[in-house]
């Protein structure tokens, strides 16, 4: 797959051009092109081993690309060693220097630039205030909690005012609760500083909440690049739909194809989709439907010719703000339905109850396999 997600030349701050990295005969990153605009937070999202870290390490200069080019503000950095690149990376497990204090860790990069001492002190102070670690300035890394270490690592990267900030699984080492809190803090700091940022994660929620744009990666290639809501609402492939959030997928064949709508016959019944596609009648494709975009009702709707299916409730799970029902459709497929609780109530539908499953035509997305 050689999709090109590049913008026009004028907007590119970072340009990745047909970049490939092979280890032996395996391509960890395979012919990837991408433009990143200034000030953007860009997430590389994908499952383990898809090449996210390799791509990030090529940006930082730790891996030499087999082919392709990387340029920053129009200047190729491909032959620059890591210590000369105006980018800083926050490592997956932070890689703080264990023999140096928090202050010395943050000052490390500044000293390498030959900054005057007074200026270094002022800058370190500023950084410590930003990440709220002033009280811990004299501690060694092993005397800090995971969250504090993460903030030191961030301060150490940002101290040098890099043109590009690289984050490898920035929240990977934190526990769940701290993660959610830190997520927003991190974005606030990055946005306040205004630095362009590429972050790597395998957590789709993290990518969705933090990033301005996301690249979904698989086996070294980009499958889809877009804003979080684009990727969620209009996934371009079965892989993306499946990877991002929960989804019900219905396989079927195209029976009506108009510019403003199309209809698809599946074993569960007929779907009326509110957007046109470019396809031929009779071709097989699938329809994606998110659990939270499905309605349940006890009585049959007025129009049952499409987007309405009979089913039986199998079981349900209560999640506080919403409940998830599993429903067996008359056509045999089991689907998930998420119903938000707008008022306080118990189970709406009981196990074994007959229900009607409905959805709006604009909630459906057609995926060409």
């Amino acid at each position, binding site marked *: 797959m050689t999709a090109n997600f590049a913008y026009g030349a004028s907007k590119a701050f970072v340009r990745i051009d047909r970049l490939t990295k092979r280890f032996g005969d395996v391509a960890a990153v395979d012919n990837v092109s991408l433009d990143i605009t200034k000030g953007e937070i860009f997430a590389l999202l994908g499952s383990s081993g898809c090449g996210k870290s390799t791509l990030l390490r090529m940006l*930082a*200069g*730790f891996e030499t690309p087999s082919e392709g080019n990387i340029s920053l503000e129009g200047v190729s950095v491909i032959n620059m*060693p*890591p*210590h*000369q690149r105006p*980018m*800083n*990376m926050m*490592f997956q*497990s932070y*890689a*703080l*220097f*264990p*023999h140096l204090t928090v202050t010395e860790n943050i000052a*490390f*990069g500044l000293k*390498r*630039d030959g900054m005057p001492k007074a200026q270094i002190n002022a800058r370190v102070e500023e950084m410590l205030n930003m990440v709220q670690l002033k009280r811990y300035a004299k501690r*060694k*890394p*092993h005397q800090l909690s995971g969250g504090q270490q993460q903030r030191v690592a961030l301060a*150490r990267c940002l101290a*040098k005012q890099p043109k590009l900030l690289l984050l490898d699984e920035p929240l990977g080492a934190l526990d769940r609760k701290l993660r959610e809190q830190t997520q927003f803090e991190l974005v606030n700091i990055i946005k306040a500083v205004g630095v362009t940022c590429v972050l790597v994660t395998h957590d789709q929620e993290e990518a969705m909440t933090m990033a301005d744009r996301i690249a979904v990666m698989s086996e070294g290639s980009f499958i889809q690049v877009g804003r979080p809501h684009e990727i969620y609402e209009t996934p371009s492939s079965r892989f993306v739909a499946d990877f991002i959030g929960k989804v019900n997928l219905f396989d079927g064949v195209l029976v009506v194809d108009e510019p403003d709508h199309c209809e698809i016959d599946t074993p569960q019944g007929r779907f009326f989709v509110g957007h046109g596609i470019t396809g031929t009648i009779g071709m097989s494709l699938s329809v994606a439907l998110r659990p939270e975009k499905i309605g349940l009702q006890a009585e049959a709707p007025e129009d049952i010719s499409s987007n309405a299916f009979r089913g039986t409730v199998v079981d349900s799970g209560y999640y506080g703000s919403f409940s998830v029902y599993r429903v067996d459709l008359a056509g045999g497929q089991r689907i998930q339905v998420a119903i938000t609780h707008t008022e306080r109530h118990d189970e709406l539908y009981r196990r074994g109850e007959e229900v009607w499953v409905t959805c709006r035509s604009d909630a459906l997305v057609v995926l060409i396999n």
Partner: protein
Amino acid sequence: MSTATSLVDRLVDRWGRLMVIGTPYIFLILVFSIPFFVVLKISVSTSNDGIRFEDLSTFNDWVFSFTASFQKYRFLFTDDLYLNTYGSSLKFATINTLCCLFIGYPFAYFMARSPVSIRPVLLMLVSLPFWTSYLLRVYAWKGLLDDSGTINSLLLSFGLIDEPIKMMYTAFSLSVGMVYTYLPFMILPLYANLVKMDGRLIEAANDLGASPFRAFWLVTVPLSKNGIIAGSMLVFIPSVGEYVIPELLGGPETLMIGRVLWDEFFSNNDWSMASAVAVTMVFLILFPLALFNKYQTDGVGRGSV
């Protein structure tokens, strides 16, 4: 019945734990403390022939008397021979330690950075010399360094020199033999330390603008401090008291404390003097080092190694 079992359990529990904790202590007491106190006692005992000693404490007619003689110590600190020999021992041990460090560090670094698959081979090569007697290996240097030895013969036959270079029985031959013998003791602890080093720390240093060379000085070297200390101790301490190598390769100007000890014991038959020399060596050299070692290793952060 149940109380009996629990009593047995408690005894086993208690004594078992004591034995596990106690064994190394018993070992240390048996092989270190007791001999040391015997030597200490001899050093302050008086004797006519140097070998049979009077008791330090007597208990006669209800009178308890305790006599210790510090005469040997006084002599030791007034005679130049002993102080000069201590100085020379320290000098050669220091030279040896520094040479081992400068040769051993790059070696250990190279080993730790080699592919995992060839590391066992390299480790084997470092410990290979231990398979031959140390005495033979030291003696073999004589064949190389002698006036009519391999090196001089080669140089002569190539016409590079007109007469043999005097290498044997000098400070040079002594140092070569010492460095050669003690090098593995420097390399192994350094290797053990360097091989555990997190490569990402070096990358982080590079990323923050340190060239590979500076990253080495600012990160690798400080983080291998414990390995440097351990290796230096392993080399320094035994080299201070080294006897065999100076005996085989050293000359008249390379007198070391081991030689003096030997002479006092076997030539002068003055066991008290020999013991005083040994005890002074322990107090003057080894205890400060042990303290330094403890202080240094405590001071390093838990996370570092």
